[in-house]
């Protein structure tokens, strides 16, 4: 038979050899200790009990576990506690044996550590010993499998510490094995096996359960009888050799499980002196593939030492080792499944994965989720863009806005409430961040309450205003640099200029959304080629400039050959496009200049489209350099798993319709043309402040754009009405 080192050698392996010798000379019965097994629900239930029931009360609680004798070989001997463990009167799973325990839940980690474990064990051992002496354990032997669990629940971190003890009373000299253990099928004929099985089933049903932990056995060639422990005197007439049964959760071929230990102590104490030899059937009741087998049960023969029933309480053992094999508690970190914030995160992620699994297998979610988004403007558009980004699982969202929340805002601006308007109103950028975190704590949101300097809005009143403007520019540059996508969601046209220039210079993807009364434009800015790449880029753009200027006098029809297949780096920006927009003097104003009052659904539509456009761009292998899809491409094979990647989406709510125009970058653009970028990159704030302080003629002169004249007049009118606050 295999030899098992003692506990001492398990803790200190160099001593193993010595112990093998010692054990071999004297074959003693060894037991497989219980391994604690906790279902996830146990910790949930303990948390509920601690919060609602125990609170700060540390008094011991009754608790219930169970063990099972039907495991296939290879599994450890387990004592399982599930979420129903706290309901001691609840049902025990079928064919399982209940084990009653005591829960000591401490309020602090300190108390957990300093609890006198030896005292707890001694107390439990004494309880078992008393029940053996009094005979109560004969009437109800379930006390023999009593256990202890010491816990501490750190409900702030969702860390749980625990330590099980399966108290066992120790024989001083151990128990001698008279013979090598054999399997029941070696001992019993098939008839005896089935008679035994039938007798056990009969005992279960007559005692109204599906498992009996300890029982008595009598057999002959033809017949097998079993009885409850309390019927000992009636059942056994001859004590020369008696056979007992123990419900054995162990699956090892040579060794019984823990429950036999205290049972042997009971037998030795009650009948030890009268028994010559004790035969034990370690009852294992497996069902494999629907086929029941008790043949694997183990039969042991032992000689019990005699014990004086009046003796003092014997030594108890039974604290469980931790996974490292050391005497120590275990701990488990359940923040992943208990911390509501972590739960929200994993649920959101899983929901998005679902979309990939089910509908768009090639969807690259990580690309979307990890995109850092800068939202310039936290009004109607900003609120809706943020919510849609959250829906896509985007974690990094930053707001820039300089306004406060006013009474008219909450009904249209999805992140604000009435309360936010009181006492002058909260600042939008910060209130939006707070709300995002309330909606989804896993979001990494920041808010910047700041103004964006604008062309034609002088900053040169004093040194203070100049310094402030410089600070704002630097802040904006830094923000754009630290994000991947810039959303232009402001309500004025001029405020889009500076971020357009900076983002074009930094080669950042820009998504722009602007609203009219019942029309909108959502577009991506052309993404200039990286600075170190071939500069031949500007020449094709200028070669197209002739057609650009011609198109500025005739309406650009989406889908014409000139405007199809424009690669991303040659697409226009918001300012390019307005210039080339169909020209009718007075009505040729950008959408946001017409009126800031729009149909309420428009911001939701445009905000959502802006995010969806971004996601589609990100899914394209070339990202911002993707060729612009046009309306005609709607019939063709889409370039990404999500479909088209247009340059612009222009929508007309009155017709419930939209078109997908694309247009080239304009080499005289006041924002993204090379000459503007060159000046910005060379002179930085010096150049910018000139733009802020000058009239339109400065940029006009710079770009040589005479056409701009007419257009800036309109802007001037707008500026005045903006300042006049009618």
């Amino acid at each position: 038979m295999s030899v098992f080192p003692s506990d001492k050698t398990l803790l200190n392996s160099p001593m193993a050899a010595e112990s093998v010798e010692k054990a071999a000379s004297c074959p003693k019965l060894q037991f497989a200790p219980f391994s604690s097994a906790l279902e996830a629900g146990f910790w949930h239930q303990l948390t509920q009990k601690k919060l609602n029931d125990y609170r700060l009360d540390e008094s011991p609680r009754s608790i219930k576990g169970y063990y099972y004798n039907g495991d296939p070989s290879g599994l450890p001997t387990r004592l399982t506690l599930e979420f129903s463990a706290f309901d001691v009167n609840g049902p025990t799973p079928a064919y399982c044996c209940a084990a009653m325990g005591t829960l000591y839940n401490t309020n602090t980690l300190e108390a957990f550590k300093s609890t006198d474990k030896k005292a707890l064990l001694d107390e439990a051992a004494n309880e078992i010993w008393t029940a053996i002496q009094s005979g109560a354990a004969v009437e109800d032997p379930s006390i023999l499998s009593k256990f202890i669990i010491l816990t501490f629940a750190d409900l702030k971190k969702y860390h749980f510490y625990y330590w099980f003890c399966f108290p066992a009373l120790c024989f001083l000299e151990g128990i001698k094995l008279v013979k090598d253990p054999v399997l029941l099928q070696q001992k019993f004929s098939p008839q005896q096996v089935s008679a035994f099985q039938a007798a056990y089933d009969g005992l279960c049903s007559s005692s109204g359960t599906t498992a009996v932990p300890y029982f008595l056995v009598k057999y002959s060639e033809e017949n097998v009888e079993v009885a409850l422990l309390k019927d000992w005197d009636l059942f056994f007439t001859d004590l020369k050799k008696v056979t007992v049964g123990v419900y054995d959760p162990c699956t090892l071929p040579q060794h019984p499980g823990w429950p036999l230990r205290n049972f042997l102590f009971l037998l030795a104490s009650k009948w030890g002196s009268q028994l010559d030899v004790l035969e034990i059937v370690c009852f294992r009741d497996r069902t494999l593939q629907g086929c029941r087998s008790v043949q694997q049960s183990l039969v042991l023969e032992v000689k019990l030492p005699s014990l004086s029933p009046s003796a003092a309480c014997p030594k108890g053992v039974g604290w469980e080792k931790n996974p490292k094999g050391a005497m120590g508690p275990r701990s488990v970190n359940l923040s992943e499944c208990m911390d509501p914030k972590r739960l929200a995160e994993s649920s959101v992620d899983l929901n998005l994965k679902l979309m990939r699994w089910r509908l768009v297998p090639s969807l690259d979610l990580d690309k979307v989720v990890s995109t850092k988004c800068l939202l310039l403007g936290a009004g109607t558009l900003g609120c809706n863009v943020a919510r849609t980004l959250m829906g896509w699982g985007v974690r990094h969202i930053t707001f820039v806005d300089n306004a406060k929340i006013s009474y008219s805002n909450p009904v249209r601006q999805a992140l604000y409430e009435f309360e936010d308007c009181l006492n002058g109103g909260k600042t939008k950028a910060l209130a939006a961040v707070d709300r995002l975190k309330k909606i989804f704590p896993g979001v990494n949101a920041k808010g910047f309450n700041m103004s964006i300097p604008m062309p034609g809005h002088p900053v040169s009143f004093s040194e203070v205003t100049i310094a402030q403007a410089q600070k704002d520019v630097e802040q904006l540059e830094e923000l754009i640099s630290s994000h991947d996508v810039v959303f232009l969601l402001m309500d004025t046209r001029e405020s889009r200029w500076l971020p357009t220039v900076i983002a074009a210079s930094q080669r950042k993807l820009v998504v722009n959304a602007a609203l009219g009364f019942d029309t909108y434009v959502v577009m991506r800015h052309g993404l200039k080629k990286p600075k170190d790449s071939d500069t031949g880029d500007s020449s094709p753009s200028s070669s197209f400039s002739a057609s650009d200027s011609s198109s500025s006098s005739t309406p650009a029809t989406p889908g014409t050959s000139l405007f199809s297949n424009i690669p991303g780096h040659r697409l226009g920006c918001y300012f390019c496009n307005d210039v080339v927009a169909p020209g009718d003097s007075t009505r040729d104003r950008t959408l946001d200049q017409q009126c800031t009052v729009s149909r309420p659904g428009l911001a939701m539509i445009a905000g959502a489209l802006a995010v969806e456009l971004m996601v589609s761009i990100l899914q394209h292998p070339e990202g911002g350099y993707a060729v612009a899809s046009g309306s005609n491409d709607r019939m063709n094979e889409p370039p990404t798993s999500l479909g088209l990647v247009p340059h612009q989406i222009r929508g007309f709510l009155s017709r419930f319709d939209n078109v997908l125009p694309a247009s080239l970058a304009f080499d005289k653009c006041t924002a993204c043309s090379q000459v503007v970028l060159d000046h910005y990159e060379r002179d930085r704030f010096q150049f910018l402040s000139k733009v802020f302080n000058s009239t339109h003629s400065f940029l006009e002169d710079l770009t040589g754009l005479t056409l701009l004249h007419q257009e800036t007049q309109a802007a001037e009118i707008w500026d005045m009405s903006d300042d006049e606050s009618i």
Partner: protein
Amino acid sequence: MSSGEVSNISSYCLDEKSFHLCCKLFLQHSGVIRDGWSWADVKGSEEGYVKKTAIIPAKLGSLLNHKADDGMNAVTGVDECDDEAVGDYIVQSQVLVHYEYHILYSIGHQVPILYFRASTLDGQPLSLDEVWSNIHPNYRQRLLQGPWDTLTQQEHPFLGQPFFMLHPCHTEEFMKPLLQMADDKKRKINYITTWLSVVGPVVGLDVPLSYHTELPAPD
């Protein structure tokens, strides 16, 4: 129409009464072959669910990381060095996973739903990636096409604890051809058994053949 029997071609759903009947028959057979299914009553409610737990040896790897090292080993105060009657027989390198399976009825979709959770023996639930890594490679390709693609995370309606579940929105879709075929062959089948054979492999659950051969169909 007899309850539980699929005689109404237009609907491949399962009404609640039939669900209970199917479960009853399912549990009867489970009792015979003792594979561990049982009925769980929900306190203070008429409702309940069919449940089973199983211990399955898992693949090593990430699961070993579950074992936290928190310096608690110094906390002993327990001296048990002299217990020679104890053997340490546990194969330390093996990680066991505790699977819990719950079959609930969805009134909304009129189909059964499988809720499940897997955890190591200290009660720490496995992530979905870990669950996936324990699915037999032979099953993976098929499961990706369904019903794995319906996996989602949700609070258990009775326990209020996070579970994974196979969303019922596609159940009728994949059950329909099976039920239709049985119907064509005039064969009565137990909805629960058939359904569980499809969704079971997702969660390491095998449905013994005897459920199909020996379990009486409801009529």
